[in-house]
């Protein structure tokens, strides 16, 4: 059994603000461009089949889903779905521990 925690979310804009507050010598606009560049670099890597490895945070890789036959939900016709890759994230040890510790503090 597992369920999504009833937590608030940090959105991209708040992440940019937090970084900008700690890098006060950089203009907010530069931090915004940098964060967008980082996410774009990560998306580019994954969409060209490259892994991402960040020590203490985790790694991103692709998992392959083999072809299968499915059904068109409207018509009920059987359709063959081609194989595809999906992004997968494996949290690193430090992130796993920090996340689990947050439950013990509650």
């Amino acid at each position: 059994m597992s369920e999504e925690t009833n937590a608030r979310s940090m959105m991209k804009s708040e992440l940019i603000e937090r970084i900008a507050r700690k890098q006060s010598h950089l203009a907010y606009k530069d931090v915004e461009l940098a964060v967008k560049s980082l996410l774009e670099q990560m998306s580019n890597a994954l969409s060209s089949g490259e892994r991402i490895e960040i020590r203490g945070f985790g790694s991103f890789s692709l998992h392959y889903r083999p072809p299968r036959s499915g059904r068109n939900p409207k018509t009920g016709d059987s359709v063959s779905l081609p194989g595809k890759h999906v992004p997968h994230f494996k949290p690193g040890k430090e992130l796993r521990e920090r996340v689990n510790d947050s439950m013990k503090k509650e």
Partner: protein
Amino acid sequence: MALTKADMAESLYEELGLNKREAKELVELFFEEVRMALGDANHVKLSGFGNFVLRDKTERPGRNPKTGEEIPISARRVVTFRPGQKLKQRVEAYAGSQQ
């Protein structure tokens, strides 16, 4: 080959004209802020990329794979990644080797 923090800092230096120290600090801060938010029990939603979502798991029975001994797996909080629509579509188009 894998993308690393050093590669990402190098791109910030080349693309945005940050100096090397600023670029390195920015990459460190980016991952540290996401990790801190998750460690403070917040989900993290990065539109266009994906969401890091926290889930609480109840205790369940487990086994020591070496000895076969039954030991409960304690209740825990885990982080999962749900890729966004845009990232999923881009990755689906990757026709490389089956991994």
